[in-house]
């Protein structure tokens, strides 16, 4: 019986092709819009998450306090309040995965006839762990290199390309300032960070070497920044509190005295960025689903017209034994079929456009099976929801009145 009814619904649609097509168009546009918006929204989310994962997870940084000289305050990182000893003590704390003291600044690199200005980071091997950064060619330097201040360097992909071109940089000697450094490894590519800066345009050297040979420091053993990685996202707050307490104790700060350092949560910034894109994609989806609603109302409208037009047919069907449930089912099936067909076309259209956007603009789009599933569920729901009222109206017709209808 269901099969016979489906056949009849198909016939009814075929009897008024243009009208069925126009009604479906509403659903096509609605579902298409939802699919495109979801693909773009999830694409943006994916892109942000990719960027965040290159930064490293559960990170926070500690900057040394400011220095005031002649009424001019230096800003964070200016004063000599943090030491390598602080970094080592933080590393011993529970809940800390990595703690790396760093000292960084822009410097000119020279190799043969090439030169390149880049960011030089002096740090310890823990830094690579915190940033989840691996060496793809050659090997990282170790703690012994930091202790003995050897002149070795790890270079980012961008530096390798600009300074060494097609040559293999490992084992080559380049100069930073006047000091020669041996390139021991090339870092894996990370791409842009959230600010749009190229993370691969960098050189990493041992902290001690950086302080003695490259930057120089008026206070030996002091550092500007310590990067800390907590063991878990849940433990971040606690670890930050522990670190603050430890540093206050080590710096002999009494109750009531302000911190002589700054703590910044890097992951929180990244999280909020991810949250923003998530909100954005939900918003886009919500706007797109309004067009789905409009499509549904179109179906309801046309089904109401159809019920009125076919009043006599309904009367005949009732006279020869159709129950109210049969009539209800017949019109409901028609509405669902309309919305389903519209949904299928919309899905194809939406995927096509999303892939087109990806091909033309290179924007990341993510097409997930769940999005398609959601679109289908919505189509069925829209069909039932907006088909219900007209179908019920048809089923509740009085057979005598319906038969008399001209």
């Amino acid at each position: 019986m269901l099969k016979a009814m489906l056949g009849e619904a198909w016939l009814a649609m075929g009897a008024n092709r243009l009208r069925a097509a126009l009604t479906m168009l509403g659903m096509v546009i609605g579902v298409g819009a939802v699919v495109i918006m979801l693909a773009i929204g999830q694409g943006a989310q994916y892109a942000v998450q990719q960027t965040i994962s290159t930064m490293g997870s559960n990170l926070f940084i500690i900057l040394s306090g400011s220095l005031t000289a002649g009424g001019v305050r230096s800003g964070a990182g200016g004063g000599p309040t943090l030491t390598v000893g602080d970094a080592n003590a933080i590393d011993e704390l529970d809940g800390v995965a990595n703690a790396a003291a760093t000292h960084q600044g822009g410097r000119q690199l020279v190799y043969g006839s090439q030169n390149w200005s880049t960011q030089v980071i002096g740090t310890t091997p823990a830094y690579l762990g915190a940033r989840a950064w691996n060496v793809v060619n050659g090997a990282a330097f170790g703690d012994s290199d930091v202790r003995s201040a050897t002149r070795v360097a790890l270079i980012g992909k961008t530096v390798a390309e600009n300074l060494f071109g097609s040559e293999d940089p490992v084992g080559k000697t380049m100069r930073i300032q006047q000091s020669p450094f041996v390139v021991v490894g090339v870092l894996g590519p990370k791409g842009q960070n959230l600010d749009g800066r190229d993370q691969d345009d960098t050189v990493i050297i041992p902290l001690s070497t950086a302080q003695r040979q490259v930057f120089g420091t008026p206070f030996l053993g002091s550092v500007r920044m310590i990067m800390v990685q907590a063991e878990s996202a849940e433990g971040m707050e606690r670890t930050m509190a522990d670190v603050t307490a430890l540093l206050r104790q080590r710096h002999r700060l009494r109750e009531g005295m302000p911190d002589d350092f700054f703590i910044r949560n890097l992951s929180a910034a990244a999280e909020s960025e991810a949250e923003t894109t998530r909100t954005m994609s939900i918003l886009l989806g919500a706007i797109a689903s309004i067009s789905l609603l409009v499509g549904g109302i179109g179906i309801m409208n046309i089904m109401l017209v159809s019920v009125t037009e076919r009043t006599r047919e309904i009367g005949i069907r009732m006279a020869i034994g159709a129950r109210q449930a049969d009539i209800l089912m017949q019109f409901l099936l028609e509405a669902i079929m309309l919305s389903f067909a519209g949904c299928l076309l919309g899905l194809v259209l939406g995927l096509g456009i999303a892939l087109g956007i990806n091909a033309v603009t290179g924007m990341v789009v993510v097409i997930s099976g769940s999005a398609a599933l959601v679109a289908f569920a919505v189509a069925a729901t829209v069909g039932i929801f907006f088909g219900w009222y007209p179908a019920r109206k048809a089923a509740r017709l009085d057979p005598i009145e319906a038969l008399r209808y001209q």
Partner: protein
Amino acid sequence: MTEPVIRVAGLGKSYATAAGLFTALKGVNLEVREGEYIAIMGPSGSGKSTFMNLLGCLDTPTCGEYWLAGENVAHLDNDSLARLRNRTLGFVFQGFNLLSRVSLQDNVALPLVYAGVDKEARRARARLLLDKVGLGRYAESLPNRISGGQQQRVAIARALVNAPHLILADEPTGNLDSHTSEEIMRLFNELNGEGITVILVTHEPDIAAHAKRQVRFLDGEIVSDHLTEHAPC
């Protein structure tokens, strides 16, 4: 004596109108035995259409009782009435009332769809009845390809498809010329000859003359009920 196909006792129907309560049918009593051939006559407004709607289970009475094939149907719900219309009754209308979009065969098979018969059986049964009314060769045609008289034959085939206890025909020749009317009446005569109970509503005396018994309505009451004097053999 066997149970009558129809037994109606004190059947009444009234409507609320703007002018107050209007009583269309005032306590009618009637018995119809199997194999009878009855013409219901009367001017418009006499209550005969209301009576037919009640007999056809399209409407429920305000008062009184109605036994159809031994079942009291006066107070049944909508679904049960639909089942009776489907299995126990066959309708023939003045306006033929075929579905214009589907073939004659599918029109005839439609009651079987609601009876839950499978497709093959539906097709075979519909074909059989189209052959019976002499239109088997048009099985795949649409209703608008054939004449009015032929359409009414298809409607009669549809009424018969579920082997009902009786056929209710409401002015079956009202839209047909006299020659075609005669043909349709001959078909009814044949069906009755096979033992099928037929009740038809008409206001034409020569159509009513085909029936074996004539019941006349006036102002919501039966005013005469007698056998046709010169019943055609």
